[in-house]
């Protein structure tokens, strides 16, 4: 069976079970609308949903870009300098001990109801997995390569930029995949805490007004968006580290 057909069959099965549950239990639409109603809501209110989706998407994309940039830069800094290691590492670990969700109200207070606070949430969530993954890669450079480069009279800077960083790109790629997966969480949590636009905001409002079908429609769009983003990052990462042997390759053909 083709790789596209299989998930479609699974999805169709879930939708069918959902519809059957709604009908058999006689659930009212404001508790759990059937998939048909959700699709109708999606079609009827697509302009509203897309407008909010655009806001959320920009927050997520900006968050991924900035978070990855900061994460990668601090990993390189920590790998390159002993001082940076001493000063930044504890900070990094402590930053992860703080529950990001508890920070959300504070960020909204400081950065306002607009996009900035949501982007900041996404950046904070992404920052650590990217830094940790990349740093791990930077630390594990094959020692033989470094020794060879030293005998070739390479400077520490050349070793970092031409050997350590390229060798750590596969590790950075795994960090970016995690980032793409968690960034939507940051953005939506930010929207829940306080905002005037975005899918999180729309869902909260729809929920309060018992428009559960609209809420599900927004959720569906959010899921599709997050999935597309993950796939895009995965594709991009694969293209950059093409040289890395893919031992699970058979898994992606089937």
């Amino acid at each position, binding site marked *: 069976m083709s790789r596209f057909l299989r998930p479609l069959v699974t999805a169709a099965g879930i939708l069918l079970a959902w519809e059957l549950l709604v009908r058999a239990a006689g659930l009212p639409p404001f508790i759990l609308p059937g998939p048909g109603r959700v699709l109708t809501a999606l079609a009827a209110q697509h302009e509203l949903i897309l407008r909010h989706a655009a806001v959320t998407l920009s927050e997520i994309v900006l968050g991924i870009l900035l978070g990855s940039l900061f994460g990668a830069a601090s990993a390189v800094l920590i790998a390159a300098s002993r001082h940076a290691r001493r000063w930044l590492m504890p900070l990094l670990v402590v930053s992860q001990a703080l529950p990001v969700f508890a920070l959300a109200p504070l960020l909204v207070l400081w950065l306002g109801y607009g996009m900035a606070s949501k982007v900041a949430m996404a950046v904070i969530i992404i920052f650590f997995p990217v830094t940790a993954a990349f740093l791990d890669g930077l630390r594990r450079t094959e020692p033989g390569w470094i*020794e*060879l480069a030293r005998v*070739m*009279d*390479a400077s520490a800077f050349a070793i970092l930029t031409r050997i350590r960083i390229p060798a750590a790109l596969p590790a950075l790629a795994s960090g970016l995949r995690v980032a793409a997966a968690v960034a939507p969480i940051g953005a939506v949590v930010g929207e829940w805490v306080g905002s005037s636009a975005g899918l999180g905001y729309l869902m909260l409002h729809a929920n309060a007004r018992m428009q559960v079908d609209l809420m599900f429609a927004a959720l569906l769009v959010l899921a599709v968006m997050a999935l597309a983003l993950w796939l895009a990052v995965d594709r991009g990462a694969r293209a950059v580290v093409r*040289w890395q042997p893919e031992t699970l390759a058979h898994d992606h053909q089937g």
Partner: protein
Amino acid sequence: MGVRRLVYDGTVLFENMRFRLEGALWTCLLGPSGVGKTSLLRLIAGLAPGALVVTDDGRGLEGRVALMAQQDLLLPWLPVIENVILGYRLRGTTRAERRRLRDQARELLARVGLERHAEALPAALSGGMRQRAALARTLMEDRPIVLMDEPFSALDAITRHRLQELAAGLLAGRTVLLVTHNPLEALRLGHRLYVLSGRPATPRGPLLPKGPPPRDPADQALLALEAELLRELTRSAALLEEAS
């Protein structure tokens, strides 16, 4: 070169040791595993501190040493030809210079039989081809002193035999230190053979096989020497076991 005292992991590897590499000749260093062959090579390469290296012309060793290890150490993200000019890339070159270097690298790749694989990534090459690419990279450095740490030991017998011949031809005239645990390899390629022995270790020798390398491994005199070397190595291994 001389080493006052080298302690590794609480063990005194060398103490008041002296070792001389004759210019333009292949010196082979044999010895049981763990005796300190690789440590000695790393000392000369400047990868470990603690050695006092004196050269006949009084100049230091910086910029005059090339290294060839047991693993090919090719960077997997660079095509073979870029790996060959790696040293120049790391030291920094202009674009025009790089073009000239690539032409030179292509010639070297032709000499090791890899001209058709210049643009391939290392992963596409067999183990023997990769080690030939590493040899081309070593030659590209064009350094008077070449340090080799068991460069052929991971290869199958036929590939090893052919690569030994190739290396002997291409590195003739350079000062070579070949660390190996294979007596026959040392006898084929070396002008001066030492066995590193004892703890702290001292080089014993030299053994001087007759005739220019690469020698025919079927030569009777060579086989007699191999037996002698094996005896020496066995004695050295026994000494090492006693010491530890």
